[in-house]
């Protein structure tokens, strides 16, 4: 167990007096992320250190860390006693089998260490060269760097790779929001984007069982769980939308179905958010992507909201959303062929540019409050 992981954070540095609070949040989030692994966690000057773990789990721990917002980068390091023989031996071992160019970069926090940083780099570099004929030194743009960090504790960290992590702000630093999640590609990405900015998330999903399948719901649970990994767990509210859809179908003009559905969803989401102390609604809308995402459609649904509606993907192209979706591991699930929205009631020609006044008149045919209350009385809550 002579491997350790060092964790660096980024933007918190900028946060002045709040820095302490944010650091504590980050620390707790990291601890939560790695809670299933036996290891010790400690803070060293400006960084966190994870040690005493089973090496078999390094990749899993790094994977967990990659989902903690606020973590800027991490490195798996070798931990050796601070004496030059050990440092040389381990550095040679790390470079074994590698080729190309390298340099050695030494930092010496322990000023009692008898050799100057520059001298350590020279000495270690020379020994690496002797042991590996495929390597050359290039101090300007090497293909990799052997970092030697001589700590005050009498131990030295040696590493070559710095893995870029999620970045952003620690989860919880930017309030709490309710993500409207469907089974599609966009909404999990929208959730991820807000999580990255430090927003703690809960999620709401509308399903139309028996018009939609159980698999569709399972798919949403899986997607929500994936988003939850970026926020240290997540609560999902599943709202049955069947009665509302049937009522719209029965009482309103066919082409208003989607427009009215969106307004109901927004109203119900806002109620859930308010009842649970959440401060914003998050949607995966992207301008013009589908009929319900034109500026007129967004105006129609936005007009029933009183809290901020955050749309982190509003100006994203589909292809860019897909790219993030692939990166965060939700794409494969999103494209499973279970429809999350009932196709039984979908209009052939939905309104592309709904007129708000007309929408409100159409909505007047419905017992909006009654339907919303019924829906709110039958919410299933799933902790993920």
């Amino acid at each position: 167990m002579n491997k350790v992981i060092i964790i660096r954070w980024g933007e918190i540095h900028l946060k002045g007096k709040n820095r302490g609070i944010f650091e504590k949040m980050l620390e707790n989030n990291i601890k939560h992320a790695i809670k299933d692994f036996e290891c010790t966690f400690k803070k060293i000057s400006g960084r966190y250190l994870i040690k005493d773990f089973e090496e078999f789990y390094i990749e899993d721990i790094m994977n967990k860390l990659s989902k903690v917002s606020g973590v800027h980068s991490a490195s798996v390091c070798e931990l050796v006693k601070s004496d030059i023989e050990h440092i040389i031996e381990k550095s040679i071992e790390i470079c074994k089998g590698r080729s190309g160019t390298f340099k050695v970069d030494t930092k010496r926090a322990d000023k009692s260490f008898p050799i100057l940083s520059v001298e350590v780099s020279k000495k270690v570099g020379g020994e690496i060269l002797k042991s590996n004929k495929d390597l050359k030194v290039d101090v300007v743009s090497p293909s990799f760097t052997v970092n030697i960090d001589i700590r005050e504790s009498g131990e030295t960290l040696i590493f070559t790779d710095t893995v870029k992590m999620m970045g952003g702000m620690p989860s919880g630093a930017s309030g709490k929001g309710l993500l409207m999640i469907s089974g599609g590609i966009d909404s999990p990405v929208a959730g991820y984007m807000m999580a990255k900015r430090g927003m703690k998330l809960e999620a709401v999903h509308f399903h139309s069982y028996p018009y939609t399948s159980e698999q569709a719901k399972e798919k949403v649970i899986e997607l929500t769980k994936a988003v939850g990994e970026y926020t240290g767990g997540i609560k999902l509210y599943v709202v049955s939308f069947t009665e509302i859809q049937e009522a719209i179908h029965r009482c309103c003009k066919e082409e208003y179905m989607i427009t009215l559905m969106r307004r109901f969803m927004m109203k119900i989401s806002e109620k859930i958010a308010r009842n649970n102390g959440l401060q914003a609604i998050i949607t995966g809308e992207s301008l013009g992507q589908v009929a319900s995402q034109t500026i007129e459609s967004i105006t129609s649904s936005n007009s029933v909201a009183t809290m901020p509606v955050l749309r982190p993907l509003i100006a994203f192209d589909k292809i860019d959303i897909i790219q993030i979706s692939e990166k965060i591991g939700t794409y494969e699930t999103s494209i499973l062929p279970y429809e999350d929205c009932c196709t039984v009631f979908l209009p052939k020609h939905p309104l592309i540019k709904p007129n708000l006044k007309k929408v409100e008149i159409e909505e007047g045919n419905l017992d909006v409050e009654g339907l919303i209350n019924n829906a709110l009385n039958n919410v299933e809550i799933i902790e993920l």
Partner: protein
Amino acid sequence: MIYLDNAATTKVNIDAVKKAEYLLFDEFYNPSAKYHGGITAQNVIKQAKNTFSKVFGANFEAIFTSCGTESDNTAIYSYTKRGNAVTTLGEHSAVFAPLDSIMKSGGDVRFAKINSDGSVNVENLLSLIDNNTTFVSVVHVNNETGAINDINSIAKRCKEKNPRLVFHSDGVQAFGKISVKLSNYIDLYSLSAHKIGGLKGVGALIKNKSLKSLKPYIIGGGQENGLRSGTENVFGINVFETVLLDKIVNFDKNFKHVTALKEEFLSKIDKTLFKVISSDNSSPYVISLSAVGLKGEVLQHMLEKDGIFVGTGSACSAKNPFSRVLKEAGYDEKVLNGIIRISFNSDTQLSDVAFTSQKLNENAMNLKRAMYNL
């Protein structure tokens, strides 16, 4: 809970499992081992083989496999290296998909048309057979509609056209449900244990002993006379043997009971809402019907709310929304969308079937009202 999706799988016969339990914890040995325990295990398999030969006739022997699909694939890949293969558009995917893939990679595979009940158009099938036909596969009972193909007569007529061809039939939905008496014209016949109360992961390929040219699909330690390598599932095979015997012994009683179930169901179902796809002479164990103009999957979910589990022929999915077989049988989208499959087991209760037909009628009516604003 009322389970009417027995064509998908059946509840495991608990007595058969209890009887075989000693093979998991006491006589758990590898049948290839040369010490006493291994020989005991080998004897369990021998005994099962004897039972299968007794059931199917002395000219047939059983090769144990992992499932019906493996049995089908073993047969198909053994006889499609040369010449042409002939099959039907009514096959289960376990036969259809490998043959379709052989065709797509350049092989000569011919698909015979099917009738509206899912049975094969025999004349069309025969017209596809020529001197170069090496392999013919015709499903015994269609898994979606229950349509029965008279495989003995079809095999005879096929071999009259070309005596050298190998005739295979997938009997997964047939055995234990309809009378199965294989004639000597049948060369290979696939079975699956879990459709008759056995375990998932156990199947058999029944082989006519005169057929010498079968090639193994899985090669290794040479078990099953080299025709199917891999350590035998002794426990599963023993359970398979027990449930097979149970189906034989109770055949007449079960058949009568399930025929009554089918009659009860069909007499109660609202013919103004449903179109029955299965024909009168199909297997009584499977009934295919369509809530025309409605969605089968929605009905399936509605029934689930009432504690009733049935199958569908379509899914609310973007990929392959309709049943391939029923599409080939000539039905339009309105029918295909509304397909429901009810399949019985010998222990299905008459009262449950009556309740199901009532709930189907009610739910279909409600769905129709909701969809069409009636």
